[in-house]
Structure formats: C-alpha cells, structure tokens
C-alpha cells in the first residue's frame, strides 16, 4: 500500500515540526496547534474525509482556485484527510516524548557548547523519536485501518476491491475475507519491522 507509507512518512515529518512548536512554552503557535489536534482527535476520520471531498466543493472560491483539480481527485483527498488526521495523533505522541526528556540531558548538551537549535535537532528530536517507537508502531497499524476509509469515497483500495466484488457479484465472503487477510499480512509485517527498529534504536536507550 503506497498510500499507507506515503501518508505515514509525510505525517511523521509534519508532526515532528508541530511537536517542537507545541512543546515550547513561548511559541505563539502552541494554542492553534493544540486546537488543531483536539479537533482532529475529537471527530471521526470518516467525517473529516467527507468534509474534504464533498464539503470543500461547496465554496465557489475553492472551486475556482488552482487547488481544485487536486481537491476533486478522490485519492488525493483521502491522502490529505489521512495526513491531517494522522499528523494530529503523531504530534501528541512526539510532543509527549519531547516533554519527557530530562532537563539534565538538555543542560548537558548545552554545556558542551551545542547551540539551542543543535540541541533540538541533534539531541532532543532523535531521543524523542526513539522513545516514541512503540507508540509509532501502534499508530502505523491505526493508519492502516484508516486507509480502508478510502473505499467510501470511491477509491479502489484493498477494501474497495472487496466491496466491488460484493456489489457486483454478491460475493460477500470472498471479497471481504481476502481484504481482511491482506490487512492482517500487512499488520504482521509492519509490527515485525517495528520490533526490529525498536531493538536497533530503542534498546540502547534503556541502558542508561
């Protein structure tokens, strides 16, 4: 599933940036980001995707803008919806990890002569990412579950193919069970990969 990997990668980058702004106490962006994550986490993904796909077309301004060719494309809408939704969850995960970094670690790297931004990019972010690996693995499976929503706005994904089989040939078991098996295969592979990543990147941290 290309959709899954692309969405996850883009969200991870965005979430890292948002988490940095969200966790700093002085940033003016802190409250808007909080509002954004609250809205995204408080409403169903299905509705968010509907709002993007059906809702935005209501406004003449958007229909005549240069973005319209992209927003009328169902697969780009689902990608946008998934990215926006998933970024909110990832932001919360990463900012939680950023907050849990001991002050002494930051002070130590500052005292070694690293600038503020270097401390942030070379010390804080890598540690936060490593610490949130187990949560990221859950989140990845969750995004995989969410990609199934694509089939509700006419994109033919794994589930979309299953629904087509059901609708045209009345083959309920075949289509849906095949889809389910494929999803399980992806989930098992993904959790194995994340377990490997955890052994490689998280395990060394626990020897402190």
């Amino acid at each position, binding site marked *: 599933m290309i959709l899954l990997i692309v969405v996850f990668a883009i969200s991870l980058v965005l979430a890292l940036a948002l988490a940095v702004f969200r966790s700093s106490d002085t940033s003016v962006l802190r409250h808007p980001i909080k509002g954004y994550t609250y*809205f995204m986490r408080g*409403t*169903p993904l299905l509705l968010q995707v509907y709002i993007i796909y059906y*809702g935005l077309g209501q406004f003449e301004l958007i229909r005549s803008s240069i973005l319209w060719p992209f927003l009328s494309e169902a697969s780009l809408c689902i990608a946008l919806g998934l990215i926006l939704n998933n970024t909110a969850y990832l932001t919360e995960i990463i900012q939680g990890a950023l907050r849990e970094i001991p002050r002494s670690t930051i002070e130590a790297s500052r005292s070694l002569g690293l600038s503020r931004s270097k401390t942030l990019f070379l010390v804080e972010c890598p540690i936060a990412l490593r610490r949130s690996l187990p949560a990221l693995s859950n989140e990845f499976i969750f995004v995989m579950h*969410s990609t199934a929503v694509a089939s509700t706005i006419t994109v033919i994904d794994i589930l979309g193919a299953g629904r087509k089989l*059901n609708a045209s040939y009345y083959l309920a078991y075949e289509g*849906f069970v095949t889809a*389910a098996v494929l999803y399980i295969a992806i989930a*098992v592979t993904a959790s194995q990969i994340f377990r490997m990543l955890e052994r490689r990147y998280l395990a060394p941290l626990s020897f402190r």
Partner: protein
Amino acid sequence: MSETLSYVPYVLAGVKLTIILSLGSVTLACLFGVFTAAARLSPNWFLSMLAQTYVSIIRGVPELVLMLLIFFGGQMLLNDLAELTGWLDHIDVDALSSAIFAIGFIFGAYMSEAFRGAYLAIPKGQLDAAKSIGLSQWVYLRIIVWPQFLVHVLPAFRNNWLVILKTTAFASVVGVHDLVWRAKGAASATHKPFYFLMLAALVYLGFTLVSERFFSATLRRVQRGWTSI
C-alpha cells in the same frame, strides 16, 4: 437559507441513533472483553490461545472491513444456515443491530487487553494476604481487587470509549440512519455539504468534550486516597 436551516433538526435527530450505537457497542464490548480477558488469563491453554487469536486478528483488520464483513457476510451466513437446516425462514439482518454487534465484537478485543492489563497490575501478594486473613474469594474481588482495578482500567477504558464513539460514524456506510448518514443526506439535498458535515463533526467534538470531563471527574473520584499513580 431557511431551507438549509430546516434540515438542521433532521440531522440532529440522528444523534439519538449515534448514542444508541455507542452505548450499545460499548456494553457489548465490555461483555466480550470480560470473557476474553478471563479466557486469556485462564490456565487452560486452549481457551487462552483462542482469546489471543481473536485479539490479534481483530487488531490486524480495519474496523470498516469487519463491519462490512459482518453486515453482508452475516446475512449470507444466516441465509445459508436457514437453507441448510430448513428451520428458519428468511431472516433480515437489520443494519443497526449488525453495526452494534460488529463494533462490540471489534472493541471487545481492545477492551480485553485493557481489562487484562488492569488486572495484572494488581500484585499477586494481595491474594495471599487476603487468604491469610480469611477473606473469601468474592470478598477479595469486591473490596480489594475492584477499587484498584477501576483506577488502572479507567484511562484505557476512556480511550476505547472515545474510539468507539468515532467508529460509530462507519455505521452510516452500512446504512444506519445515524448522524453522519443524515448529514450526508442533508448535504446532497441542499448542496451545502460543508455546513452539514461540519455540524456533525461539531456534535462529535461535543461528545468527546463531555466524555473527557466525565472520565476525569470519575477518575478523580476512584483515585481518592491514592498517593501516587
């Protein structure tokens, strides 16, 4: 504009079904969860393996897939059974009960993990201590396990409840006339999709807000007397 406004009560009438769906599913999920957690913790390896398989299959498959499978596949299964045995006439599976069953069945797996974790967080030594002062099994569960269990289980229970609430939106895909279904209907009738979908989203946001308030109050209540958690 007045025509648009006249659809608002129609959409909000779907709130009732959304609430029925969520409360029905969460009750069912707790039932499934309790039995699954008990099976998982039981010394019988077959039961425990069965429970583990159920949990890992559910966690690997998207909710929407399972809901469609249960709605369409369940209907076919019943038809086949009816034909095979000749006992039953044609039974129609209605969308609401199949959606409640599907969501309950899915979140039973997640609930069982929450229950199991909370139960395991209670030190085993307390059972020995309770036995040594002569408490019966029932009294032990009621006055020693239950208060601690609540404290451990509530955060995970709250998370599951919030996810269940949002999952009920999928019920509209199998044709339950809930909030989302009605919002979509009103959207295409008035050509104002943004307003109605946003209205539905705000209702969900309101539910989330209320639930969070409720759970933090409850958590404070059950944590009375706890020094640290």
